[in-house]
């Protein structure tokens, strides 16, 4: 596939995925923190188009679950009362993109709970939690990447352009940051913070920490690009004509780094999403009941969950298309930057 088309396809798929996550409030049927205490660990419900008699229904339907008498989490399907899915229903309040207050949801089923991906130990809808969790995890990854790249760009180009002892100092600092055991650093920093941090504070903290810890690698890369480009003939020529340092950086040197920065971004986003997932998995992320992908997976630390409720793994699968998308994007960007292979 030509790299141009591959790039566009890749961007389209990623865009679609992000669109769904950004509109989590609309696409999910429930509030992600709402507990349905009568439905703990409900298994995923299948949507049907054909009923028992083989007739096709345009509106998909599902069979509601019923708790087995005396059991805690054993359900059976009530096949006698199929419930049809309703679309564009009014439900729990949410804010689309964090701004517009809305109550309309893509689908719902009235009073009968529909758990497309099952429910967790509090009876919270895993599908809704997965979509909302994606908002936190992806946004954290994107913001942290932006932060790390800004720092990297600034420090890397400064180091290369200034050279001498300043270059040395900055690069040794970068190596120091690479060598830091950042996970333990995070534990230590968390211990110094006040006891209760709000979800927003915790989120910003994660973004800032991942971003500031991660600047070193892009900085070294950008430095090398700047180093080589500042010795190019046209740059020397411009300098000979009396161009100022900032003009050279802006006009000739930094544009050379764009492709590196973009490729780095595509590589770093999944890495930092994973960093957020790791932190939340260990309980250092946004606090419950706010979902994030890491929070969703943290219940898998319990052996009984691991063996009894397979649908609790599903959030980990949700990450796969995002990560693959970003990595393919990175390689497409790289191909484009290097030009067609011979």
């Amino acid at each position, binding site marked *: 596939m030509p790299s141009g088309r591959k790039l566009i396809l890749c961007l389209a798929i990623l865009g679609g995925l992000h669109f769904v996550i950004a509109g989590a409030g609309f696409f999910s049927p429930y509030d992600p*923190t709402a*507990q349905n*205490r009568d439905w*703990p660990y409900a298994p995923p419900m299948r949507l049907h188009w054909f009923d028992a008699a083989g007739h096709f229904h345009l509106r998909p339907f599902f069979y509601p679950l019923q708790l087995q008498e005396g059991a*805690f*989490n054993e359900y059976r399907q009530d096949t006698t009362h199929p419930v049809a899915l309703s679309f564009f229903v009014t439900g729990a*309040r949410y*804010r689309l993109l964090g701004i517009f207050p809305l109550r309309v949801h893509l689908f719902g089923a009235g009073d009968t709970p529909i758990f497309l991906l099952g429910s967790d*130990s*509090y*009876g919270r809808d895993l599908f809704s939690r997965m979509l909302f969790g994606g908002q936190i995890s992806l946004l954290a990854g994107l913001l942290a990447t932006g932060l790390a790249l800004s720092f990297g760009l600034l420090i890397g180009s400064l180091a290369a352009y200034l050279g001498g002892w300043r270059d040395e100092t900055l690069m040794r600092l970068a190596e120091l940051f690479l060598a830091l055991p950042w996970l333990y650093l995070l534990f230590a920093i968390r*211990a110094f913070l006040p*006891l*209760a941090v*709000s979800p927003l504070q915790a989120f910003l903290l994660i973004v800032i920490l991942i971003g500031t810890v991660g600047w070193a690698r892009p900085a070294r890369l950008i430095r090398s690009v700047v180093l080589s480009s500042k010795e190019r003939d046209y740059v020397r020529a411009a300098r000979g004509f009396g161009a100022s340092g900032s003009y050279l950086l802006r006009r000739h040197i930094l544009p050379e780094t764009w492709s590196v920065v973009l490729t780095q971004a595509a590589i770093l986003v999944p890495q930092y999403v994973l960093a957020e997932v790791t932190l939340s998995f260990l*309980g250092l992320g946004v*606090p*419950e*009941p706010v979902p994030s992908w890491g929070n969703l997976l943290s219940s898998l630390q*319990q*052996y*009984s*969950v691991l*063996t*009894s409720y397979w649908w609790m793994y599903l959030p980990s699968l949700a990450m796969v298309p995002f990560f693959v998308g970003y990595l393919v994007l990175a390689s497409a960007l790289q191909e484009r930057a290097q030009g067609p292979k011979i």
Partner: protein
Amino acid sequence: MGLAFLSALFLLAICLCDGSSISQAKQSASDISGTSTKEELFTLPGEVGRPGGRLVVALRAEPKTLNPLIAGDAPSRQVIGLMQSDLIHINRATQLTEPAIAKSWTVSKDGLEYVLKLRQGLRFSDGQPVDADDVLFSFQLYLDENVHAPQRDLLIVGGKPITVRKLDSHTIAFGLAKPYGAAERLFDGLAVLPKHLLEDPYKQGKLDQSWTLASAGSQIAGLGPFRLKEYVAGQRLVLERNPYYWKADGKGTRLPYLNELVFLFVPNADAEVIRFQSGETDVIGISKVGADNFSALARQPRGITMTDAGPGLEYNFLFFNLNELGGKASPDLARKQKWFKDVSFRRAVSLAVDRAAIVRLVYQGRGTPIWGPVTPGNHRWLNEALPHPPRSLDGARDLLRSSGFDWKKGQDGDPLLVDSSGAPVEFSIVVSSSNAERTKMAALIQDDLKQLGMRVQVVPLEFRSLLDRVTQSKEYDACVLGLVSFDADPNSDINVWLSSGSSHFWNLGQAKPSTPWEAEIDQLMELQLDSRTFDQRKHLYDRIQVIINDNQPFIFLASPDILTGAKNAVGNFHPAVLEPYVLWNAEQLFLRNTSESTPR
């Protein structure tokens, strides 16, 4: 881990026992050894088993020592409990005292002197005979301040250490400064130690270095059913049958049945479950088994039977920071404490908590909602008349409104509770991060209180830093914690309820009771200590339960059942709700000769 630590704390608690009737348990003396010394064996009722075999159990941490004079951690106490015996024992099934090394005892009329008669002809596990000198020596060690035995606190009655006198080679008299009818509960867990092995280390001041895990089996002796065979650091501890043990079964066969008892060291509860599932261990439940693991095991019945032994003595509760911090409190906490110290606020929280949901979602139904510190597992002391108000959000709202709280519309349109000065009611609940059950309870409470308009955050903390916050720095708003009474007697929890007690978590370190009702509890506790009959004590303790219920220093949540399991091949498996839940009758456990018992 949390529970283990707390129950260890509890062992250190001063336990004073009072008077009630003296049990003259049935016993029979029989002479089966055929040797010249007449041995007075204790015959146990129950199924007659088959001698031989080895039983494997998992231990969640390595014991730190085999020395009863130092042991404070749960694994050490569990192992030592099988190697040593006490004079008078609390039967874990009946929860009553029964004779052990002492075959009988009498009490003087004034209740100040106990005279204990020892069994004749008993021998330590190394074959050396037992007499009153060993008992005298043991209590000398427990009471010696330089030894720092954790048992010492237990033996201070009425402010004075008990006195011990030898009357003859098999008779011992114990003197108390104040009368306590059935002080016999005190003797449970106090091992009779061999003088011939420990006298030299004691004289040299080296007691704390003796009976370590590295000691050879021949250096350690006791009167328990098992003795040390082998210890492999990081892997296992093996106990072997004590051939001189003093109990026999109905047919006169000397107990224990098992040849060996193996403790495998596993890192955590999940590893324990996996070992049991794979058939590597025979019994599970020596440490608490969670309901989720229990039902996962119950679903895979491959030659195992899972047993729900019913409600235990663990009570979980939410409490607020009611400490008198004076100027030390941050302005933020001082503001919140105004709500916390309002009893209507605490009652409203209690009314709003959905205990049924906690039992169902946290314990999968294998637990009981509670409204007081005495769980249904402790049926003798439970105050049945205690009110059990059903969950009522409206009732909670009424209470809050009458106390000056009000609601305003929050950002998202949800009602927000505000206090009389208009400040929103927000606080955090700290909870041990390693305890999934309590973390879950806190999350449920968070959601319950959200419906009252309170904004609550759950903060999982590592258990030690949680304890540090609660007991040292006192920088917290509220906390979910649990305690396990080590005995089904009110005195095991005395440190929680006395205003000066070391576990009086909501307001620690009081020089004098800070509220009238805490003063009343102090007074009633003192009274019940001095009372000699069960009825009197029960009456007083019922009143204490009512006061606690009225004032809600703890908002009681739920109590889990004791969940255990064993291979079908294990005979005489009768789990109890008192610790040690499954190995309390280890001497009677045996392996049936069935296909299940063959190694997989």
